[in-house]
């Protein structure tokens, strides 16, 4: 029994040393080729499993939600009509705006994004990390640093890529930071991911007015993300007079649990990686 216990202790020590060595090597980037190789091999399997899981989940959700879906359909139909009217008014405002800018000699450039749709095949297995794996990579023009969006706003950026996969760091990951600004006051700050799927906008100057419901957009500072992408909406303001800066809790408009297709911007080159 003692020999057996001694053997298991020796094995623990050996494997613990190997694990710690792996941590060090990974920090130095030495294990990236191995990781890339594994992900390239497993991405097709994850694509199949994910497809099955989505169908199963969709079937159960549909059956459970039939009643609720009818009510929601009626509500959304009304909302569509309201939004149509609003679009018409906004289009008129845009026309007037353009005309005024031209009169002032001001030229505004709207970026034309080259968007590549990619399918989500996997998520990080940890509850503390927010990464997605998608089914396209360098073969389709995706590079490390490529920005990823969905119609509801900024999703994240590509941090690792192979020929047939990309790994995306979501903005809600605790290691992610995005330079942002408040749409109303134009006050700038940094939005960092937090446990629970929200973001914390930090370094807002004390004199700035921060309101609940304020939209938060990318500021373009630092060059990692294009300017003007939606990051989220302010849901809580933390302001103390004794602090140098204010903070705001920001909630993304994206439903991260239901992501199936996301879009990689191929024609935006980040100036540097954070």
């Amino acid at each position: 029994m003692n020999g057996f216990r001694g053997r298991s202790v020796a094995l623990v020590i050996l494997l613990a040393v190997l694990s710690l060595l792996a941590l060090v090597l990974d920090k130095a980037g030495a294990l990236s080729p191995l990781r890339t190789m594994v992900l390239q091999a497993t991405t097709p399997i994850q694509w199949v499993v994910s497809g099955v899981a989505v169908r199963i989940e969709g079937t159960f959700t549909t059956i459970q939600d039939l009643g609720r879906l009818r009510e929601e359909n009626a509500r959304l139909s009304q909302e569509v009509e309201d939004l149509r009217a609003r679009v018409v008014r906004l289009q008129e405002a845009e026309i007037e705006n353009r005309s005024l800018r031209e009169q002032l000699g001001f030229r505004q450039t709207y970026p034309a994004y080259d968007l590549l749709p990619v399918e989500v095949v996997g998520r990080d297995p940890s509850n503390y990390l927010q990464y997605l794996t998608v089914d396209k990579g360098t073969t389709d023009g995706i590079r490390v640093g490529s920005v990823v969006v969905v119609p509801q706003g900024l999703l994240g950026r590509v941090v690792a890529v192979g020929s047939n996969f990309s790994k995306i760091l979501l903005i809600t990951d605790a290691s992610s930071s995005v330079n942002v600004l408040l749409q109303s006051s134009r006050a700038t700050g940094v939005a960092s991911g937090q446990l629970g799927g929200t973001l914390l906008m930090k370094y807002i100057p004390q004199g700035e007015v921060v309101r609940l419901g304020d939209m938060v957009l990318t500021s373009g500072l630092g060059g990692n993300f294009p300017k003007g992408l939606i990051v989220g909406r302010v849901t809580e303001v933390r302001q103390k007079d004794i602090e140098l800066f204010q903070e705001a809790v920001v909630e993304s408009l994206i439903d991260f649990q239901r992501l199936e297709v996301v879009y990689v911007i191929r024609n935006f080159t980040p100036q540097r990686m954070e």
Partner: protein
Amino acid sequence: MNIYLSVIILVGGAILQSSLAPHLTVIGVKPSIVLPLVVAWSIIRGSVEGVTWGFVGGLALDLLSGGPVGLSAFTLLLVGFLTNLGESSLFKSSLMLPLVAVFVSSLLSDGLQVLVLQGSGWNLDWAEAMTRTAVPSAIVNAVLMPFVYVPLQWLSRRTQGEGELQW
């Protein structure tokens, strides 16, 4: 048991945890598949195999994850070792031991992971992580455990004659 079968089970578990488990979110957390596998095998077959399963399963998770490689390998091999410290053949046939073991192991593994992630630059609050994520995760893993432990007991009986992990 044949090492290749072990690797298939563990790598398959890691793939399921990254592709299937996110669609089965319960009380805000994803169930773990590899951790219950490691705890169950450690109880059934002892610490040597439990440690090996922890290392291999953890490494598979790390290679599919965006976090540091070696993180899950380290935490799960410790889980495989420590699970067996309270071993008693009297309790192996009861489901209480595996349920308690996976609950405690889940808390331990998550606690260690958060500490290492904090040290690696992730902005995580340890207390918030434990209350908000680790405890619900431990509960979910304990609920999942019977569905892992019983099949592995059967597999162990089928492969008992092969002795310890064979290379």
